[in-house]
């Protein structure tokens, strides 16, 4: 039996392919949008996963350093170590910085301060692609490759010059900013140490000392045989601090912080998907209208509706499949060019494929309806 869809497509192959590529680019953007959402989720949890803590201790009545300002004394890490069930502790700071480039540009980064000589090292060694991690208490910095800095480059920050000792990849903050690592002492200095003039003024006003020994959170691991929940409950009761398990912190990040952003992206994705479906429907409708004379002739000479509808449905499905494939190709071609992390997952592509198949079938109904309604007598003059 002659396959009308194959014959029609091969008759206007270039037009069909260009149409599929056009729709494919739209679907590629849909995939990218989903990838941006996945990237946000991934970014939000990458840092927490790298730190690898079981418990987060933060300022009382706050949600922790990622959601609200949190300050607590660094030495609480020593107190914490004495709590039953706690294995290791480490004080950490988090802050945004603008790294100045020699040409005057600045790059916004998220800086994690930790004790390089401590037992818990939040810098995942697998992420270092050049150089090394921090080894000293001062003037070293590990930067993300995307910042553009190179090994041994000097970066002026605050009152000091920092040397790039390591380059990492795929290190981003929950907000998607590139991550840099500083020693805890340097980070405290950058975050809490005021200028000399400010210190003098504060002294004149009666304030003594600085907050340079504050940190934003203390992370801890629990001993085998204890659960993070049990240890957290104990600390919460006696130490007047905010305590979160690792999962709790993740929940705050993914559930609270990026909730609105992900909703926003979800809306964009839904609208884009709807636009894609409408465009596919319009293309199929137009493809049918272009052939309406031939369809009328076919109906007049006695070709069954089933054969005509089969042609329309097959063309629509093929357009959907080809568009999807070109969309996947397009998204993989461009996703690395985006400044923030874009995570393309096969399961998202499979879901999109299912949506496109259903949408194509629905779109083909428009064409089929047009074909069924075509008046056979319109094939002739008279």
């Amino acid at each position, binding site marked *: *039996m002659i396959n009308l869809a194959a014959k029609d497509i*091969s008759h206007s192959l270039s037009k069909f392919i260009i149409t599929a590529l056009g729709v494919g680019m739209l679907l590629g953007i849909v995939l990218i949008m989903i990838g941006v959402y996945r990237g946000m989720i991934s970014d939000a949890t990458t840092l927490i996963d790298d730190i690898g803590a079981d418990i987060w201790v933060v300022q009382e009545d706050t949600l922790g350093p990622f959601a609200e300002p949190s300050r607590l004394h660094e030495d609480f890490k020593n107190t914490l170590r004495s709590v039953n069930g706690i294995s290791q502790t480490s004080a950490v700071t988090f802050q945004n910085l603008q790294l100045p480039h020699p040409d005057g540009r600045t790059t916004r980064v998220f800086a994690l301060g930790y004790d390089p000589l401590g037992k818990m090292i939040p810098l995942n060694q697998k992420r270092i692609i050049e150089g090394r991690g921090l080894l000293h208490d001062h003037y070293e910095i590990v930067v993300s490759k995307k910042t553009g800095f190179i090994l041994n480059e000097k970066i002026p920050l605050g009152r000091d010059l920092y040397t790039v000792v390591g380059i990492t990849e795929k290190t981003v903050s929950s907000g998607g900013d590139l991550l840099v690592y500083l020693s805890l002492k340097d980070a405290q200095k950058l975050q809490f140490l005021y200028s000399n003039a400010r210190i003098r003024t504060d002294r004149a006003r009666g304030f003594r000392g600085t907050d340079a020994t504050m940190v934003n959170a203390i992370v801890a691991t629990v001993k085998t045989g204890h659960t993070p929940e049990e240890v957290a409950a104990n600390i919460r009761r006696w130490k007047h601090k905010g305590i979160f398990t690792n999962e709790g912190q993740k929940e705050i990040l993914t559930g609270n912080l990026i909730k609105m952003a992900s909703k926003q992206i979800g809306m964009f994705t839904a609208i884009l998907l709807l636009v894609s479906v409408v465009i596919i429907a319009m293309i199929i409708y137009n493809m049918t209208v272009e052939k309406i004379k031939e369809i009328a002739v076919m109906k007049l000479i006695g070709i069954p509706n089933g054969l005509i509808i089969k042609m329309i449905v097959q063309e629509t499905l093929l357009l959907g499949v080809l568009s999807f494939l070109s969309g996947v190709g397009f998204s993989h071609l461009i996703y690395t060019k985006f400044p923030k992390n874009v995570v393309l997952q096969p399961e998202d592509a499979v879901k999109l494929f299912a949506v496109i198949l259903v949408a194509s079938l629905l779109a083909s109904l428009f064409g089929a309806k047009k074909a069924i309604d075509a008046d056979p007598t319109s094939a002739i003059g008279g």
Partner: protein
Amino acid sequence: MKKEQGIKVENLVKHFGEGETRVDVIEGASFTVNKGELLALIAPSGAGKTTLLMMIGCVTEPNSGTIWLGEEKVYENGWLVKDTRSIRREKIGFIFQAPYLIPFLNVIENITLLPQSSGVSEKDTKAKAMELLTYLDIAEKAKMSGSKLSGGQNQRVAIARALANDPQIILADEPTAALDTKRSISVVQMLKKIAVEQGVAIIMVTHDETVLPYCDGIMEIVDKKVVMKDSAEDIRII
């Protein structure tokens, strides 16, 4: 020898609209076309030629009357068959003013599409199509696209398509309208030959007086009625 009935129409009536907007097109048409005959149908533009053809072709439903295609009564104040398209597929061949070949199919595919949709095997339909193309003297064009053929060649392909399902009747709506006189006469002679050799009843709508002498009879729509003419003489088509 008794002639076999190809098309028989009795008291066929067709009007469009109702009440004040009612337009009567055909009033009580009655005629018979036997197998092996080629009849011309003439009338001024808008007189209802195509409407009559479409009623016989089971495309447009009449308001009343009776239609036989061969020995089968297909209409009597209502369709007597459920699927009129299957009647067209099995009994009728259509030829139009323009060939209206399916542009994305080549010549042989245009001819084999209809019988294949009726379930005839690809091999048999191709053999039959080649036979028809040879009969119509365009066998060498079988694999070509219609757009590469001349108007006359395209019309022959359209005739081959109309014959592909071994129809009992052929309804031709101004098949020579787009052709010059020489080619028009050639096409009509071909239709006459088909009518005789294949025992097909053919009604051909035409505005072309030069082809009338090649027809077995002439029907004219006069004042919404179908009148049989004895000869082509003195006929002037407006």
